[in-house]
């Protein structure tokens, strides 16, 4: 009987160890990945647009978010580490990763109803614009959408820069 009791105690502690591991391991691996939704994006050396761009990040690329500071995310992409502004992820889906996405860094920036709620109280929002458009049908927002919808293909831009002897 004594031998049997001694065997049960280490077994319980193994369970406790496993539970502890269950709690700790996801915390270590909960690095969010976010999809870049805008074209012509770069990694920056510091969290400001004046910093030197380190490397280009194409539209649709998935980056690993390491930390967050204000509107800036410290990310890793293809062996490079640098900062990207939250605007690069606008219209992106919520971060996905093993574990509980969004808990560490607050989730992706989405131009959705929930994002509008997050922006509420900030001032000039999509809803304020909608009110303005209703009152001013003469404003040509349709063509603004057309202008904003025009994207230069990243590969074509690189070819254009190279052909003209310019700096990428």
């Amino acid at each position, binding site marked *: 009987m004594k031998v049997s009791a001694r065997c049960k105690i280490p077994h319980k502690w193994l369970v406790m160890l496993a539970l502890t591991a269950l709690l700790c391991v996801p915390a270590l691996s909960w690095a969010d990945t976010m999809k870049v939704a805008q*074209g012509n994006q770069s990694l920056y050396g510091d969290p400001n647009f004046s910093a030197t761009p380190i490397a280009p990040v194409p539209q649709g690329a998935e980056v690993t978010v390491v930390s967050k500071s204000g509107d800036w995310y410290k990310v890793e992409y293809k062996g490079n580490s640098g900062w990207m502004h939250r*605007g690069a992820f606008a219209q992106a889906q919520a971060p996905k990763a093993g574990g509980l996405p969004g808990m560490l860094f*607050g989730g992706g920036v989405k131009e959705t109803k929930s994002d509008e709620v997050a*922006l509420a109280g900030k001032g*000039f929002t999509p809803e304020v614009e909608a009110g303005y458009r209703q009152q001013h049908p003469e404003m040509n927002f349709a063509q603004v959408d057309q202008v904003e919808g025009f994207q230069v293909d990243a590969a*074509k831009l690189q070819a254009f820069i190279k052909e*003209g002897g*310019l700096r990428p």
Partner: protein
Amino acid sequence: MRRQPVFCAFLAAALALVWGCASLDYASIATIAVKTGVKATEAARPISDSEEYYIGRAVAARVLGGNRLYTDPQLTLYVNEVGQTVARKSTRPNTYRGYHFAVLDTTEPNAFACPGGIIFVTRGLVQMCGNEDELAAVLAHEVGHVANKDGINSISQARWSQVATTLGTETAKQYGGVGGQLATLFEGSIEDVFKTIVVNGYSRSAEEAADAQAVTTLKAAGYDPGALTALLTKMQAKQGGATGIYKTHPPTSDRLAKVKSLAPAGAPDQMEAVRSKRFQSLKL
């Protein structure tokens, strides 16, 4: 046996923590985190990048309400390629929704930088540019206005004070107070920016700062910075009067002298011929 309660307590706590986390609406946590981050950064500046973007969109809509868009696909692509090439080398290579360049179908030379990154150049100004480097100089100058937030800075201080007061009210916190005072302030802000960029022009100091930035940007991008000097010299010689670009971006002697000191005319590089050739292939 005495360890059994300890084990049970640990097990219960661990399971409660795991289930508790799993049952939380992480979207709510995300929203709270985003809100907190926004508030922290908003305190340090008068306007967020997203607000700047929505003002810029409305200003662009106002410009396009009175001007026709020139939709030639070749020219639109070319202007965007040159624009993106300089924008990425500017002091603000990225904005909330990026830079977008478009051509207005008028022979009157002019260019407008809407807050947030929509930049218009008229067909007349593209025609006035003799080559790609001069067009790059125009676009780099306009990117400089966006980078310096010159459009946003033209919104009257009194209006900003009103915005701050309005945002403090509970009504405004409910979906931005649409239909209320905030909408009126939005309209007023657009008017302030429109009057500055289309009618009255920027201050002399804003023009000179945008010129200085354009010279730096052109050098960084590999374009000839002397192209800005060449274009301003051309504009001054034309004596265009007090309308269009001569009103919004007056090529004064002081301005020209400062640009000359920053970017003296030099010998064109070998690739300038390639760039000029693709500029000349445009249908203007």
